[in-house]
């Protein structure tokens, strides 16, 4: 029973908006007895980022708040229990479990379900929707065996689903759209065309103006049949044809619902029964259903305010959207379609790089009304703000999409020009004023800290770049000089030091410290300078071994327990039976554990430091070289088997991989480099997850850069299309050298690009158009590094002085580290933990 005097608020639906309502109500008052019914088996999770479930996030990662949060806040939860009836007369709800729960106020947050059109055959196995974690589990299972998949619906969600199928490895993924273009509700025709060609380049097959007449197959889908008589064979179908508000409960209870669905609400989100509210995707406000989280959160705020004597009302919401995860930037804001005579538009189109931008101005050119961005949506947040806040436009409005030419820093200055009331994070309703105040008053200086402070950027994430600009802009305005220095011993960034050492021809760490540093150095600047020196001169790394991280010092990766691993280079992953036998014999002789690495080579673990030179001597005599697995340098160029064996292969990916790996082997870089070459868009070598990846096309090769696996995966981005091998190598030389020269220490290419002002467009300009006029230098510098390649292990093996350093006890070279202990597992050895 409800505690004395506390009114009972019952919430039906524990989705994103239902959860947000609980959070907002609790923040205003705890003088309520909160009871929540959720039909799904788990507490609310982040549906917006649902696709990340395929990318490795677990259901727990996606939760809006852990289960414990509800308990800690005294909320009574009924999960997996749907409400079946509302009895308005007795003010009670009746759940499937038989539970009867009285309410003083009832909040309907039942969301929507995927709309499934009435096509004969939709009930067949293999036909799915994209809405809940359970749906995704089903899709994942189906994708594991499917070869041909299709998505019905070329809207925002459909494209996200299609990209997910592609990423799940469905070899052929089709998008079927009824309208003559993609995303007809968000972007204009020219934008759709550009989007289509970019998606096709990613490997999606797109069919427009297609009406599906029925779904074929005996019990299980095997084909789609279209109105025009054509047939498409598929093993699975994901339907994404829109959403249908879940108003069935409301309808049953006699509440007013819209003709095409949705629970009718007024400006205070009240339904036709004043004790009952509806929020989120189930609510119909002024004839509109809002299928986005931000307006849903705003509705939650309105009801929380109404219940606590506030006066907030809902007055409609901007439907701007930025699409993520499909590998192509897509955004639309304000009114994307408005045209002459009500507006004049400025359009920028670059078919080569696949960028389309359109902005619509008021006829007098003073205001921004809306627009579409395809291929490059960096300007999205700022443009949205400009439109929503009716900011004055620059004298040349085209600068908004072309970027201010000339004077630097203009873009961050304009961020600060936003009015304080400007809503930066619309999901969490955080204003520009609040963000700047957090910086000046609470000393919040990072996006992560800002998320903790006021939740800005935690919803759809679209505003994160703007939040970052605001933080940096405010800090700069405060006079905080954000200088990027190596460590307490050097007042220079890596890039500055790189140039200084080069110009002054300094070749040792001590010389660098004497000229430009102070103190005796440390574990940060020593390896960083080591990497710069290697990037400049490619001298033998062991000559200055005391400044290297231990892996570079002993030319092997230190492992748990203090043993080292041995990884010979196996370029492109190609290895002969004879070479395999050599590796096998060496591993057997020295008692090493062997494992195939993720980079298509063989790792031998558990070597004593004193055995390293002997092991390498045998490997080198058999023709192997160091694999540089220990260095911040090129690891491997993974390859698929390519046209020599694969029936889909367009070119010989293995030969190219071997050539590229041998070209860049041993070169030291700010962080490790990984690469891959695939023989066709099926992408078996996962080249788009690499620092640089190459994929064969009909006409040549596509070059992707700055991708990354690791803890924060990021897809590589397309730098150049359909180029021949000579051009490819030229671009790679420039790209890699530019990275080696300008990245901060221990910064992978993905992060380097993320931080680069101007982003991919800038990088393209430098690498392809030589906008800085340094291309020839970059190529020459790379040539020097390549020319100075040496197998480090060969040098050590042949040099008794260097060899001597590979002992555990210098006063007892024949004694091995007695604390190192091994045990057996599956017939091989493993380290015993202390």
């Amino acid at each position: 029973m409800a505690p004395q005097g506390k009114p009972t608020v019952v919430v039906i639906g524990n989705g994103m908006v239902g959860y947000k309502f609980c959070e907002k109500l609790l923040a205003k008052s705890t003088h309520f007895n909160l009871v929540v019914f959720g039909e799904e088996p788990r507490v609310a999770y982040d549906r917006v980022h649902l696709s990340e479930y395929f990318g490795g996030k677990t259901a727990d990662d996606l939760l809006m708040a852990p289960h414990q949060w509800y308990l800690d806040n005294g909320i009574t939860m009924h999960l997996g229990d749907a409400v079946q009836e509302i009895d308005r007369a007795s003010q009670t709800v009746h759940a499937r479990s038989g539970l009867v729960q009285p309410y003083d106020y009832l909040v309907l947050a039942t969301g929507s379900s995927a709309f499934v059109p009435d096509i004969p055959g939709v009930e067949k196995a293999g036909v799915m929707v994209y809405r809940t974690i359970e749906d995704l589990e089903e899709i994942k299972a189906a994708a594991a065996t499917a070869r041909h998949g299709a998505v019905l619906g070329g809207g925002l969600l459909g494209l996200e689903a299609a990209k997910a199928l592609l990423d799940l490895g469905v070899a052929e993924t089709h998008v079927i759209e009824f309208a003559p273009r993609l995303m007809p509700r968000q972007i204009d025709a020219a934008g759709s065309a550009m989007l289509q060609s970019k998606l096709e380049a990613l490997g999606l097959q797109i069919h427009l103006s297609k009406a599906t007449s029925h779904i074929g197959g005996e019990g299980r889908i095997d084909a789609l049949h279209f109105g025009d008589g054509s047939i498409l064979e598929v093993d699975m179908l994901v339907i994404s044809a829109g959403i249908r508000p879940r108003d069935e409960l409301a309808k049953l209870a006699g509440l007013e619902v819209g003709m095409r669905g949705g629970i009718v609400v007024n400006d205070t989100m009240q339904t036709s029964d004043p004790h009952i509210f509806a929020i989120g995707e189930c609510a119909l406000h002024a004839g509109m259903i809002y299928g986005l989280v931000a307006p849903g959160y705003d509705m939650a705020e309105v009801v929380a305010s109404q219940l606590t004597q506030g006066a907030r009302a809902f007055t409609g919401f901007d439907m701007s959207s930025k699409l993520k995860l499909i590998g192509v930037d897509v955004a639309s804001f304000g009114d994307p379609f408005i045209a002459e005579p009500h507006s004049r538009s400025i359009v920028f189109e670059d078919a080569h790089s696949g960028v389309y931008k359109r902005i619509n101005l008021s006829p007098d050119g003073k205001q921004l009304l809306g627009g579409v961005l395809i291929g490059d949506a960096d300007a999205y947040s700022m443009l949205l703000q400009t439109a929503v806040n009716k900011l004055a436009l620059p004298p040349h409005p085209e600068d908004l999409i072309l970027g201010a030419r000339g004077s630097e820093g203009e873009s961050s200055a304009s961020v600060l020009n936003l009015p304080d009331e400007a809503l930066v994070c619309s999901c969490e309703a955080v204003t520009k004023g609040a963000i700047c105040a957090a910086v000046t008053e609470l000393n919040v200086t990072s996006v992560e800290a800002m998320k903790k402070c006021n939740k800005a950027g935690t919803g759809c994430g679209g505003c994160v770049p703007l939040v970052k600009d605001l933080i940096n802009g405010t800090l700069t305005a405060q006079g905080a000089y954000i200088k990027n220095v190596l460590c307490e011993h050097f007042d220079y960034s890596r890039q500055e030091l790189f140039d200084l050492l080069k110009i002054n021809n300094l070749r040792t760490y001590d010389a660098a410290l004497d000229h430009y540093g102070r103190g005796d150095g440390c574990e940060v600047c020593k390896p960083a300078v080591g990497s710069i020196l290697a990037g400049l001169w490619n001298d033998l790394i062991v000559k200055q071994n005391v400044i290297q991280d231990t892996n570079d010092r002993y030319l092997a990766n230190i492992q748990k327990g203090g043993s080292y691993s041995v990884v010979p280079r196996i370029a492109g992953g190609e290895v002969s039976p004879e070479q395999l036998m050599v590796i096998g014999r060496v591993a057997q002789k020295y008692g090493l554990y062997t494992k195939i690495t993720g980079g298509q080579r063989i790792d031998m673990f558990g070597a004593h430091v004193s055995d390293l030179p002997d092991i390498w001597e045998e490997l080198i005599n058999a023709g192997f070289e160091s694999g540089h697995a220990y260095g911040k340098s090129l690891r491997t160029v993974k390859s698929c088997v390519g046209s020599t064996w694969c029936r889909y292969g367009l070119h010989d990916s293995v030969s190219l991989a071997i050539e590229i790996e041998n070209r860049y082997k041993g070169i030291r870089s700010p962080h490790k480099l990984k690469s891959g070459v695939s023989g066709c868009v099926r992408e078996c070598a996962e080249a788009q997850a690499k620092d640089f990846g190459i994929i064969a096309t009909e006409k040549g090769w596509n070059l992707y850069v700055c991708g990354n696996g690791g803890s924060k995966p990021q897809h590589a981005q397309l730098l150049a299309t359909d180029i021949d091998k000579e051009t490819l190598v030229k671009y790679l030389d420039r790209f890699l050298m530019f990275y080696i020269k300008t990245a901060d220490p221990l910064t992978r290419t993905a992060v380097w690009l993320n931080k680069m002002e101007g982003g991919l467009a800038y990088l393209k300009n430098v690498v392809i158009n030589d906008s800085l006029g340094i291309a020839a230098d970059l190529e020459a510098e790379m040539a020097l590094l390549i020319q100075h390649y040496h197998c480090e292990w060969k040098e050590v093996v042949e040099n008794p002085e260097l060899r001597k350093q590979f002992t555990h006890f210098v006063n007892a070279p024949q004694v091995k580290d007695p604390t190192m202990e091994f045990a057996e597992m599956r017939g091989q050895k493993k380290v015993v933990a202390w």
Partner: protein
Amino acid sequence: METLTEVTWLPVCKTTDIPADGGACVLVEGQQVAIFNFARRGEWYATQNLCPHKQQMALARGLLGSAGEACEPKVACPFHKRTFSLLTGECLNGDECAIQTYPIKVEGDDVYIGWL
């Protein structure tokens, strides 16, 4: 360095066994001791070889450096970069317990440590 308790000086290695501005490990009475030749400062140090963080026999393979205005000499463990003062043995960037330091002296090209 002033030592209060009586120590026994044990010869452990030659100066040439330890790389300049680096370290190496010696076996003393069945124990692993890290010897550092901080050539840039003209100083020698000796500590236990075991890093208290994850019990790795690794400090001798660490990077030498200095910290702060006072240029306190330190060594960074190669495993997870915990740093320890070479003077006091204290951990400078975490709450690991302090490491044992030993008195050390060089005579001619012989290195001795003071065994406690």
